[in-house]
């Protein structure tokens, strides 16, 4: 069993939102005083010169942030990640979604032969694709966004080059066929 300080540190690290003291009390199922002490200790540990991570406390809200000294570096990195050209893997994934969307993650992975979780999250973040719950099939499907279509100068997916031919390509049908999935299970 780990200590309270470690627990709070994990939570502050993994979240992308500020957490209130109240929330931390309930998440760690601990007493208020103890949570308060642990937070204070973490703030002392982190808020030192030379640290790349700092802990901010605004009112009741606690958040882990990057050190102010590294603002420019961090901004440049985020810019590179969110506005730059896509990696080959991301481009492949986006392409399959463009030609085959709406498509499920399982189908995407069957076609690419590799896991796509992180890539999907990043494409979603950049507004290039969107996800939708397919309630009948109980699964999430992905399609390209209207913004992305417009960016390509298109009004509809079917206006993509060679859409008919590429969309229903024989190899794709084969790789997604039940026999192929059966082989994979073996």
């Amino acid at each position, binding site marked *: 069993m780990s200590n309270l300080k470690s627990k709070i540190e994990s939570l502050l690290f993994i979240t992308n939102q500020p957490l209130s003291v109240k929330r931390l009390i309930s998440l760690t199922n601990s007493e208020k005083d103890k949570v308060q002490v642990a937070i204070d200790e973490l703030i002392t540990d982190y808020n030192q010169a030379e640290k790349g991570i700092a802990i901010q406390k605004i009112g009741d809200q606690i958040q882990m942030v990057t050190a102010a000294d590294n603002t420019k570096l961090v901004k440049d990195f*985020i810019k590179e990640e*969110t*506005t730059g050209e896509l990696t080959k893997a991301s481009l492949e994934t986006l392409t399959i979604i463009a030609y085959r969307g709406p498509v499920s993650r399982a189908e995407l992975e069957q076609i690419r032969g590799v896991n796509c979780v992180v890539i999907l999250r990043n494409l979603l*973040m950049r507004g290039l694709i969107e996800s939708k719950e397919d309630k009948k099939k109980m699964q999430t499907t992905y399609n390209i966004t209207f913004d992305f279509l417009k*960016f390509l100068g298109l009004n509809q997916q079917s206006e*993509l080059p060679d859409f008919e031919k590429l969309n229903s390509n024989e*190899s794709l049908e084969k790789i997604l066929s039940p*026999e192929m999935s059966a082989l994979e299970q073996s």
Partner: protein
Amino acid sequence: MHKIKIEQFEGPLDLLLQLIEEQKLEITKVSLASVTEQYIEILNQSAQEQIPAAELADFLVVAARLLLIKSRALLPFLDWGEEEEGEELTKQLKIYKEYLEASKVITAMVAKKHFSFSRQKLLTGNEIEFSPPPKLTKDKLAATFLEVIRGLDPILNLPTEVIRKTINIQEKISQIRKRIYQQATTNFSEILREAENKTEVIVSFLALLELIKQRVVSVRQDKVFEDILIEKLG
């Protein structure tokens, strides 16, 4: 024959190891030779249900290697060329066993559910607005998609390749069977002489064993370690 209790196995080496351990033997050439028949027996019984088509060829190859080891032990007077097979399989099995045992430790580690997690989304501070890759065009998408489709070929051809490999071994068996069948009586050393390589020697044994089982031929050996006489039955 000692009744074997093997229910599940992952690949030919796993099966072999289970057979040896079932009899509480060390991994040696002698113990490999002693489980050969059981291995082939199980292969015959389970080939349909338990062994995926993709792996059948690998099971056959190990069967062939076992037969060679056993044959060497039984018929040392024949010219076998260099003795390597037994050493190699023994060594391979020992190494496999080490990793198999390690995998049990790893399984226990994973079962403890002691997981770490990393950040799911990049921590950006602000919401990211629509940000397309500046140079991406629809033609580039089409070209990439074509590449993806072409990249599927190896995996799509996999089932055919696996089947071809299995057929290859089975074909060799049937060729040799035919030869024995045509020459009513023959000495095993004669077949060995005609074998072009070790693989064919091995396959000859597989064939002979099967023919005996199917009562197509009978074998006679006048004295231990002497040549085997093969006769067509009926």
